[in-house]
């Protein structure tokens, strides 16, 4: 089976490390790249054309809302999974409206993250439990 290629854009070093550790546990996922800002991310995504980008919606040089169109333009087939500390439903709604396929908070469990990745690969949308339950 072909591996899912995944890149993540995340400015917090410790969080990046965590994503790395997490996805090493998922044999079907191959890490295509990682970046700390949108400016770094665009050339990497353009080159890698990953299946999935895990996008932190608070980057130092762009908000998630600004970043989505840039990423989709650089790599139209990429499915964006937005990740954030924010658990307000409105963030999630806006991100999905802009073209992200999933929204998960950083408090979500490893299983949920995996679930989100699998769901978008199946062509579904995914919103994490924390937000679903809050509404």
């Amino acid at each position, binding site marked *: 089976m072909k591996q899912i290629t995944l890149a993540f854009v995340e400015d*917090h070093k*410790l*969080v990046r*490390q*965590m994503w790395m*550790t*997490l996805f090493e*546990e998922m044999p079907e996922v191959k890490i295509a790249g990682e970046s700390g800002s949108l400016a770094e991310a665009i050339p990497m995504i353009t080159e890698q054309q990953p299946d999935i980008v895990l996008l932190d919606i*608070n980057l130092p040089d762009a908000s998630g809302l600004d970043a989505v169109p840039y990423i989709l333009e650089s790599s139209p087939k990429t499915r964006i999974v937005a990740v954030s*500390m924010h658990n307000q439903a409105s963030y999630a709604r806006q991100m999905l409206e802009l073209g992200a396929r999933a929204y998960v908070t*950083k*408090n979500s*469990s*490893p*299983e949920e993250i995996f679930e989100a990745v699998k769901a978008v690969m199946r062509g579904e949308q995914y919103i994490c439990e924390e937000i679903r339950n809050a509404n």
Partner: protein
Amino acid sequence: MMENGKAVILIVDDKPANILVLESLLGSPDRTLISANSGSEALKKALEEEVDLIILDVQMPDIDGFEVAQLLKQKKRTRDIPIIFATAESKEHSFVMQGYSEGAIDYLFKPLDPDIARAKVAVLLKLQMQQKELREKNISLQNAALLINNSADIIGIIDAESFMIEEINPAFQVILGFSPQEAINKSLFYFLQPEDESRVKEMLDARKDRLSFETYTLCKDQTWKWLHWNIVVSKEKWFVNTRDITEQKFAEKRKQEQERAEQSLKQHKLITEVTIQAQEKERTELGRELHDNINQILATVRMYLKMSATNPSKQEELIARSADNLDHAIEEIRKLSKSLVAPSLGDMGLLVALKELAEEINIAGDLKVSVITEITESIKIDKNMEVMLYRIAQEQLNNVRKYASATHAVISLSMDRRHLSFSIADDGIGFDTTQKAKGIGLKNISSRVDFYSGDLSINSEPGKGCELEISIPLH
């Protein structure tokens, strides 16, 4: 006298021929001759016209000349007109004429001697004209005296050589309490303060013909008044006009005080506003720090622990990472609370605290900060001021790190008895102080300095670094 300046002579005689003779005798371009044929007509004309001299025939059928003269003397308007009686010489008449000893009275005997007639008219007319002029001058003098004596301003004459007051009006007493008698023959400077005397004498050296100055002057009742003096110097005399401007001065002072109060209220409002802004900014930053940094670190810990529960083979490694990240979180919280809680400078003093701050920044490595001071012992200033200065150093070094791209910064601190001077200079990119509006950071510093009535200046140019200088008065 008529408005055209001619003297008016009234000739009274019941015989027209006599009038003609006198007219031809006395006619001249500077005289207007009018005539009357009877005593009653003479009275009428004397009242109607401005007559300067009357030549009066004694023997007339209706009212004789003496009676006319008597009636004229009773009226104020005609009382002072000189009269020349024309009469045939007789003892009886000379006796009657002695009754008019006062005032200008003369006589001509008929038949008239032309030279004597001309001479007598000329003399009496001249006398009359002079008296008239004198009366007019007297009236204008009386008017002036009225003005001077009722003036609310002091008006007086002072000898320019000795400064003796020669004349002074009653306003001197109204304003200063000293009567004109007390003032006259005393030097003006007797009533002024010594510093006023030297000031006025200095002005005299400039040899001006006008002096204008203000004095704060002690009155007889030991109260003080503000006086404004206007002096015209002419013919070795000072013509003085002095106004009491005490009320005006106090009104000015009250207005100034009011303006100052309004200004300080405005200032306080501004300080409050900036303080609130700064607090809000601090809260926002605090919120962001908690949410974006510490909370995220804790989220990674949570994730690692969950992973370790389902992945026994990597449990040890995941727990070790959790512990590492918890250490990070603890460190971040420690930094955050240190920036929030006022540092206890009480124990270490400002100087040590500043050195420690510099040390902390130097460890990070991107900016080298040094502290320069000649102060060796611990300085004794207000604890709140110490904290304020420490805060300013923190804020400014933060600005330098964020915006200035500087490699070095120098904090210097010096103190004399009156001032504490504090500056932070960097070798960064600088900015145009005229162009760049004060950012919240600088506003924040400025409001802190204002609170201690200090002065803040920022010297910077593009490419030439920036120096922030603060001077705070002690006590």
